[in-house]
């Protein structure tokens, strides 16, 4: 990640705060595996929800209310009981298609990613899917993905209450316009520029005349992140918590 206002907040804290703002007011947010920043964001939103937000975090024993094994997250989404989820992608394109499979010709891809996980399902069923990928380069944000693990949009006859809501990277926030089937630049993180975003993005996107700066976390938010959220996220992501929050973050 590129420079930020040193001493004020860390890039991870900005991302946690930015994503959490997208979750306020929701009832139930689920977080997949290997997602410390989205996990932190969900826990932050929960901490300030006054108890109204439920967080289900894969891999967590404290923040996991599921008792029906691996299928429950998916069933729960199909029941309309999950409001937001996070997906990443080895490649993400301008139509919000995501590729979690590999680069090159399938199946013998030159670069192989882990696989599609539940993306080909949750992307259809969870109303607010937030795409998150810290690396913001033309290698990740491509004109057209090599393999569509899950499509960004669907034909009108496909049952699809869900889909992309925003794409958050280490440089900026894009929102997704379903009608236009494309991204718009919503804000650029402090220390980054619109030109830099354009240069590092392989797909076309809309830009309004004046692009906002991504709102930095205020003092109260930072205190919450560094306190309760740091403690809570350390249960599932101890290495992440130590790296970002130092030794103050201990398993509660």
């Amino acid at each position, binding site marked *: 990640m590129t420079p930020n206002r040193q001493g004020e907040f860390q890039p991870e804290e900005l991302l946690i705060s930015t994503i959490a703002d997208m979750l306020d007011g929701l009832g139930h947010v689920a977080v997949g*595996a*290997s997602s410390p920043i989205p996990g932190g964001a969900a826990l932050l939103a929960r901490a300030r929800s006054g108890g109204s937000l439920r967080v289900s975090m*894969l*891999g967590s*024993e404290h923040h996991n209310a*599921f*008792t*029906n*094994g*691996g*299928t429950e997250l*998916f069933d729960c989404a*199909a029941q309309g009981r999950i409001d937001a989820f996070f997906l990443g992608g080895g490649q993400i394109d301008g139509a919000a298609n995501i590729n*979690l*499979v*590999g680069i090159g010709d*399938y*199946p*013998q*891809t*030159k670069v*192989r*990613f*882990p*696989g*599609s*996980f*539940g*993306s*080909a*399902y*949750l*992307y*259809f*069923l969870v109303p607010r899917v937030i795409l998150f990928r810290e690396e913001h380069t033309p290698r990740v944000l491509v004109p057209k993905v090599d*393999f*569509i*693990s*899950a*499509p960004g949009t*669907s*034909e009108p*006859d*496909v*049952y699809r209450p869900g889909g992309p809501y925003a794409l958050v990277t280490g440089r900026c926030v894009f929102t997704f316009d379903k009608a236009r089937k494309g991204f718009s630049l919503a804000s650029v993180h402090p220390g980054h520029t619109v030109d830099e975003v354009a240069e590092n993005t392989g797909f076309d996107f809309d830009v309004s005349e004046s692009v906002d700066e991504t709102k930095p976390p205020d003092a109260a938010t930072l205190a919450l992140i560094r306190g309760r959220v740091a403690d809570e996220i350390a249960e599932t*992501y101890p*290495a*992440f918590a130590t790296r970002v929050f130092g030794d103050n973050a201990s398993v509660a």
Partner: protein
Amino acid sequence: MSAPLDDLDTLVGRIPDGAKVALPPDYSGCAMAAVRTLIKRGVRDLHLVGVPSVGFQGDMLIGAGCVATLETAAVTIGEYGLAPRFTAAIKAGAIRMIDGTCPAIHAGLQAAEKGIPYMPVRGIVGSDLLEQRDDWIVGADPFGGEDGPLVLVKAITPDITLIHAPLADRHGNAWIGVRREMMVMAHAAKTTLVTFEKLYDGDLLANAEMAAGTIPALYIGALAEAENGAWPVGLFGAYPADDAHLRMYIEMAGTDDGFQTYLDDYVLDRKAAE
């Protein structure tokens, strides 16, 4: 009536070459000690089904040349990085890959559990996964609902489900708690082989609290005690993953030679903590 209590060699002796073996992901109950024993035996041509993903045990079996086909939604060793032997095998075209998505794998097993040929699943339409699968068909709602196409996922019937459970009893029952993907796997497979951490002194089914998280002996072909049997992966409620060891594995398994050294050190010579 109850399944035999084997030693590890006898247990894995029940897995023939070419078997279709269902495995849970690293956060569930991984029979790592059994997998090492299986590699040592030199099993070949396995068809692995990762339910819904597979981790360390899949990467090792692939690296050791035991796998012909891999059917899974993902291969992931958690935070530690890409699975090195899986990645290398794909690049080399050394295994047949059947890419899926988690709910479709669960659905295929649930179809087998219910003895029906397929299960309808939402989503998926428009994913390139669909084009690779002749065991997924796009179908319509027979009731004429206006919610569009469904994907009909063919039943997945593993020959064997191989898992590690925190507890098992002398009656052949195995306790898995909330990790019920293993329950579906046991129901769906022709038989289930279980390694377990500790012997439960009593009948798991006679204890109402334990029974709720227990796979009945009915589904279990054989069991073997294996203390620390999920190592170096963690076991829910028992012990965490061996972080340092997994990092070392990722490092060593990055090359063919390194992986071979790892096998020599930890599998073939059994320097492992077993």
